[in-house]
């Protein structure tokens, strides 16, 4: 077994404006390898398959257990978390590319700040900051906790946006993750104070209306968040808000 090899084809890009190039790497197989552990091995000995010395591959990762959301990349053409992508379950050669809808910083590291901007735009927080202690918050029912807990598992990996046919530079669509966070924070007893602001934000250009309900987001989400359910639910709330505004504003 000692000579079993694993072959990688990695799309490299030296700078945000550089032309991408492909490089091949070969590693010795050993049990339990995943894509991040392989990138670490390549970093330890940055040589291409033909023995050429190259720069170590740049990538984002942190937790190595699919909870931080930083290591999303395209593996064999599909968006997924590299740290949970086991080599034994992948077809070889393993093609690794940066996410395609986010600006490349370098190699596999991309700039996903658009999600942060979107979370700010929809006020995805519970408004408790102030100059004095507000005391303890209202109790949440068990039912509400059970509904919101899955939504709270979002790791901001942006996979749902990468695979969404509507998320692109033409639409500037906000994407499933931020919409699902609107559902989460609107369901929070204190967070609900900002419900109208959030729903109004989602009516703006690039808002919830851009969703074509292709349901790729819910298929890809590594945390199994019921995204299409969130989109439908929030879309109903947005519609009610729009009609209310029509008569009350």
């Amino acid at each position, binding site marked *: 077994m000692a000579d079993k090899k694993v072959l990688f084809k990695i799309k490299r890009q030296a*700078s*945000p*404006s550089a032309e991408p190039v492909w490089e091949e790497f070969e590693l010795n197989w050993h049990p339990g390898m995943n894509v991040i552990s392989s990138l670490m091995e390549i970093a330890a000995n940055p040589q291409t398959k033909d023995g050429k010395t190259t720069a170590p591959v740049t990538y984002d990762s942190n937790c190595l257990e699919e909870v931080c959301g930083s290591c999303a990349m395209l593996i064999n*053409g*599909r968006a997924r978390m590299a740290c949970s992508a086991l080599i034994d379950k992948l077809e070889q050669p393993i093609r690794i590319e940066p996410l395609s*809808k*986010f*600006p*490349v*910083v370098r190699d596999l590291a991309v*700039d996903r700040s*658009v999600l942060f*901007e*979107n979370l700010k*735009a*929809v006020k995805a927080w519970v408004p408790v900051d102030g100059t004095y202690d507000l005391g303890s918050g209202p109790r949440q029912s068990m039912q509400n906790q059970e509904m919101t807990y899955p939504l709270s598992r979002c790791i901001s990996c942006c996979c749902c*946006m990468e*695979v969404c*046919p*509507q*998320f*692109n*530079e*033409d*639409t*500037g*669509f*906000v994407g499933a993750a*931020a919409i699902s966070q609107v559902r989460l924070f609107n369901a929070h007893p204190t967070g609900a104070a900002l419900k109208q602001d959030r729903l*109004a*934000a*989602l*009516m*703006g*250009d*690039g*808002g*919830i*209306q*851009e*969703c*074509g*309900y*292709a*349901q*790729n987001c819910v*298929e*890809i989400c590594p945390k199994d968040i*019921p995204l*299409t*359910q969130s*989109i*439908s*639910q929030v*879309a*109903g*709330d*947005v*519609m009610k808000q*729009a009609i209310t505004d029509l008569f009350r504003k």
Partner: protein
Amino acid sequence: MAATASSPAVPQAKAGVAPLRAGQGHSFLLRRLHSLTGIIPVGAFLFEHILVSNATAISGPAAYAHQVRFLASLPLVPVLELFGVWLPILFHAIVGFYIWYRGDANLVAYPWAGNWMYTLQRWTGGIAFVYILWHTYTMRFTGIDLHEHPGASFGKVQNEVVAPLLLAFYAVGLIAASWHFAYGIWLFCAKWGITPGEKAQKRLLVACLGFFLVLSGVGLASLTSFRSHPQQPTDPAGARIVEMGPGATE
């Protein structure tokens, strides 16, 4: 050279997808109107056209002629046609092509059921559009005027579908429009928050599939009845005889 805090800022390249423009623009209204026109009036018209009017063809030329005469007798037919059918379809179609153009289908990378439906919704819309243009042009704007001579309707459609290629075109157009409308009902309910739940969405999907089978089934049955009857007249005199019903002589 190692990256340090003093190294120059990352140079600007591709800007990427813009963040949400909260509170700006009118695309919400546009998209919701597009969605609504798909159901009312365009979908409602398709329902009437296939399940009520065209279905009378199954009962033969006289019944068909009576239905066409009834439609032609409605008040303000040109206004109904323009504002109830043509302009809404045109609006839905133009916005539909615009939505199609702005989306990036990615079926090859992600060949999942919902994604198939997303792509199919666009292609069936496009096919329906070509079909509707042809169908309206030939049936409404060329040849004998059916509002004047309802009795010529059956024969005119028969002439139209006598060529196998045109018959196939009619069948494809019918199936595409039926699918587009049936799955469109499902999409509408999902997008307007009427069926957010997983179970509700599954049940509605079954109902919409059933509706598709009924729509396309009745449509195809009407289509075959044009082929199974002997050729009916398409001239004003013959049309009068058809209107009077079977067995009648002038």
